[in-house]
């Protein structure tokens, strides 16, 4: 956060030299937070190119709001919130949700689908199941079960109440499990 304050100060003071120093400091901030932003975006969007676009937008917003972010008590919560919002906007533009009814037929049939499914196939199904969730459910599940945030932290990042987040998480887990069960049942 100290670096952020310096960047914000350089931005306020202005001048080419200050700006060059400010950009170097901002790049250092970006290096520290890039995993959080890019991985979260990838988990929310399921596609590395979309995740890179979203990350770029998140960091540009961070640069434009340096003064405001410096006053934020929880910088990471701010970053998660902006990442979720940017991914939500991007997902809404591209409409990449997969309804449960549109689950593709499995390539091959087997007596015990759970056992015979390869790791790669199961991962692919899980990715698809994430995309079948609503935006808020997906965000709650990703932040809680993949990013490892507490329910309280997820609520702060999403700007919701803890009760709402718990409801979204439980529904998302059940839907995801139903999606997987349904997929492998169709293989039989």
């Amino acid at each position, binding site marked *: 956060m100290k670096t952020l304050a310096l960047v914000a100060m350089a931005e306020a003071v202005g001048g080419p030299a200050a700006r060059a120093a400010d950009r170097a400091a901002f790049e250092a901030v970006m290096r520290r937070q890039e995993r959080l932003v890019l991985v979260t975006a990838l988990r929310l969007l399921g596609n590395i190119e979309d995740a890179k676009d979203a990350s770029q937008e998140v960091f540009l917003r961070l640069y434009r709001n340096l003064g405001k972010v410096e006053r934020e008590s929880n910088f990471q919560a701010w970053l998660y919130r902006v990442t979720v919002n940017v991914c939500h906007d991007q997902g809404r533009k591209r409409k990449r949700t997969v309804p449960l009814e549109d689950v593709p037929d499995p390539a091959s049939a087997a007596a015990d689908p759970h056992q015979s499914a390869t790791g790669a196939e*199961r991962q692919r199904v899980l990715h698809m199941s994430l995309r079948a969730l609503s935006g808020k459910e997906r965000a709650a599940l990703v932040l809680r079960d993949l990013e490892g945030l507490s329910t309280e932290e997820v609520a702060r990042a999403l700007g919701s109440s803890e009760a709402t987040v718990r409801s979204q998480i*439980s529904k998302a887990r059940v839907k995801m499990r139903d999606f*997987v069960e349904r997929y492998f049942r169709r293989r039989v």
Partner: protein
Amino acid sequence: MNCRDWEDRIALYAGGDLAAAEAQAVERHVAACAGCQSLLGGLRGSLETLRQAHGEPVDAAHYAAVRARVMGQLERGLDTRWRHAWVYAMVVAAVALTVAVWPRPPESLLAPMPPAPVAPVAQVQVQVQPAEPVAHPAPHRMRPRKLAMKSPESAEPLVVKLYTNDPNVVIYWITGSKGE
């Protein structure tokens, strides 16, 4: 309470999101319900697979690509801002120059006019005598005067006499009341 009512709590239990008392209640129900055991197993399995699927690290080249794009955009954005700053500075300088060289009205028009000289007035002896009382007639009501308006028809024609260089030639221009 049927198994549908337990579904949300079992889902929270699978991720370790229940308080101790609630977790014990779920455990007691699941121990006695085959359907909910299956649900709990499925939830745990899918969560585990999800974590494994997303546990793979992202290639460092992707991070570098994002950084390069962001920094490139900041550079372009800042250059644009500096270029605009020069444009604003030039506009301000041009306005200041225009104001400086703008022709002003002569000073005589701007200076305040001196007071006009006052001619000396000869002293006049005025003797005031008390006036005799005057009997004022009773006030009478004034009637509004009617203005005598001549009708346009009764107006005399206008005669315009134009002299030329030749003393023998004089042009008379007689116009009627309507200008015909």
